[in-house]
């Protein structure tokens, strides 16, 4: 039996506070993973079912959805014209945000917001925003 399985079978010490569960969750997240974090929230909620932060985290850490989108087949165009533009012109626009549409420059600007606005009425099927760092 693994240490984790053994730990799950043990009852939580009565001295555990909600904050100790929250701290354990934060430690997991700060280690660069979410694995096990929701289970800690579950264990905390078993002792403190009405604790708002444990409830919020339990919901926020719910399983992630991944969905294939066959309905979008044919919607997105080949991105290579935009890539070719970037390869040819990156040095000229260093430091700028660029908005491209099907291999054509729509706008080069200092801010993301300006480019976003310039592309507002263009379809996302052929547009690309990139910051030339």
């Amino acid at each position, binding site marked *: 039996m693994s240490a984790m399985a053994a730990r799950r079978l043990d009852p939580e010490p009565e001295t555990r506070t909600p904050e100790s569960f929250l701290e354990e969750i934060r430690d997991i*997240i700060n280690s660069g993973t979410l694995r096990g974090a929701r289970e800690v929230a579950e264990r905390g909620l078993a002792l403190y079912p009405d604790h708002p932060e444990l409830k919020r985290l339990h919901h926020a850490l719910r399983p*992630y959805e991944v969905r*294939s989108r066959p309905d979008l087949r044919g919607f*997105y165009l080949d*991105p290579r014209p935009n890539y070719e533009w970037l390869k040819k012109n990156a040095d000229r626009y260093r430091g700028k945000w660029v908005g491209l549409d099907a291999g054509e420059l729509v706008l080069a600007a200092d801010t*993301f917001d300006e480019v976003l606005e310039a592309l507002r009425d263009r379809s996302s099927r052929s547009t690309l925003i990139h*910051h030339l*760092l």
Partner: protein
Amino acid sequence: MQYIENRREITGSEARILVPLSLDLISKTVLAVVDTAAPWCIFEPEVGSHLRQLVSPVEEQVVLSTRLGTLKGSLYRVPLRLPAAAGDSLDVEATAFLSPDWRGPNFIGYQGLLQRIRFAVDPETNLFYFGRD
């Protein structure tokens, strides 16, 4: 999907594989570095400020160690799409780290997205394959 192979000119870094990532929340597509060593997806602050307005944080005080230093930020659950010019696009609920102090490009991280899908890279043709099943 076709990816763009970077030779410093596109991101100013040594990162090699950049793929388009569609941000459903703002209906636009950006480029992001595929990095299995990055725990989370990371977005440039200008992009992140738009995303932050539309989603709730999973955890607000998160520390991330990067090659550009240690950063403080927040983790968000963000709907993203891998847009396919051939085959099916994929919608993924990703975990993104947003920090006003990040100075690098956008990243697709392992725990935050890649771990939730199947993917493969063909360097000969610059193709990034992905799917769920």
